[in-house]
């Protein structure tokens, strides 16, 4: 039966937003925690640790997000862990985000002048304190614009969760498109909603970038 594109359909698509946002938020926070470890390993003085982190980043930046999600979704049961699409997608997006954030923050850490680390060392600060109190605050400030830029990419990336079968904004638009035979409206509305979320973030990222460029 063909359904009409009424307020129910609009509400159904709108309800998808919360899952898109929740997924983005979890992946961003989880990815941030793992990404910090990656960034620290990537800039570590231990060569093997640096190599592992570099390989990790290269892998996630050199393969499609869709394949990464498939690998987690089909791979975890292989290792004896049964997962729902929700868990698989969350883990996949978290790993994906950690590699990209790790690379962005590595750039930030390396952009902090060497003298800062050397001065901290001369003052007798240990690694943890050097990083926490001296390097990271400056590095994160330097990387804030690209970090927000990546958040936009991540929000758009959550749309791929729909291919694994998780119902978020894109999937709910797909469902409405196929029940109402109004794909133009359904996908148009979904695109509009993504735009409303992403455009202000993109602008914000650009403003941060310009403000920083003007300062230096």
């Amino acid at each position, binding site marked *: 039966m063909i359904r009409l594109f009424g307020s129910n359909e609009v509400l159904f698509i709108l309800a998808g937003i919360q899952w898109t946002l929740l997924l983005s938020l979890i992946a961003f926070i989880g990815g941030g925690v793992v990404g910090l470890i990656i960034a620290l390993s990537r800039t570590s003085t231990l060569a093997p640790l640096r190599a592992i982190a570099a390989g990790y980043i290269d*892998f996630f930046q050199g*393969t499609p997000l869709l394949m990464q999600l498939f690998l987690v979704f089909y791979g975890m*049961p292989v290792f*004896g862990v049964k997962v729902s699409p929700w868990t698989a997608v969350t883990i996949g997006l978290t790993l994906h985000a950690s590699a990209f954030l790790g690379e962005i923050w590595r750039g930030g850490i390396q952009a902090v002048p060497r003298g800062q680390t050397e001065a901290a060392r001369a003052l007798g600060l240990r690694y943890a304190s050097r990083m926490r109190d001296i390097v990271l605050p400056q590095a994160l400030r330097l990387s804030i614009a690209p970090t927000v830029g990546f958040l936009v990419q991540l929000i758009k990336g959550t*749309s791929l969760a729909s291919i694994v079968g998780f119902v978020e904004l894109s999937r709910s638009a797909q469902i409405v498109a196929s029940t109402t035979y109004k794909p133009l409206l359904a*996908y*148009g509305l979904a695109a509009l909603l993504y735009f409303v979320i992403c455009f202000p973030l993109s602008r914000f990222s650009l403003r941060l970038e310009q403000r920083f460029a003007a300062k230096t």
Partner: protein
Amino acid sequence: MTYKFDFAVLAPYWEMFLRGCWQTISLAAIAVVLGLVIGIVAMLAKRSPIRAVRLFATSYIEVIRNTPFLVQVMFIFFGLPTLGISLSPWTAAILALSLNCGAFAAEIIRGGVEAISKGQVEAGTALGLKPLQIFRFIVLKPALRIIFPALSGQFILVLLTTSIVSSISAEELASISQSIDAETFRSFEVYAVATGLYFGLSLIFSTAFKAINRIYFSYPVR
């Protein structure tokens, strides 16, 4: 129960995987070439003196950059037929990828063009270079040099993005992997191989681009 990996069942499908790689490369190459053309036009339109043209170009660039590619490709493939424009999956995939690439390319090219200062062109004229020589040596090559790393990054990005057109069943590596998966029921192995192939492709291309950058664009600037 432990799972037994079985990559051997995939051996007879090597030709399909190879075809998928080739289709993925072709899709990316066509999309990047068309995307560059669209990008140049969009960049010029954004600098147009006519306000409506500027507004149109800006909206195009911002809408594409701030919506997911999946929704774009669905909109084109499932949405356009209701307006009477029916496209084959492959055509829809090329259209969506080119439009997507064009919006990102426009911003990259703008960066390159804005980096060439007027004074340099004037210096070329003062040295008695012909207009064509000025364009080639003073505008084109330095601009290309500046944007080349970003453009090659964009190519890799498009190469990886092509996997999403499997959702409209346009034939390329990801959709071929899905059909092999449907025949063999070896999901993990199939996608592991596909992921490895994508990784190999992006490694090959990024190495090649780095070499081109080193050989062709390494001359003293300052």
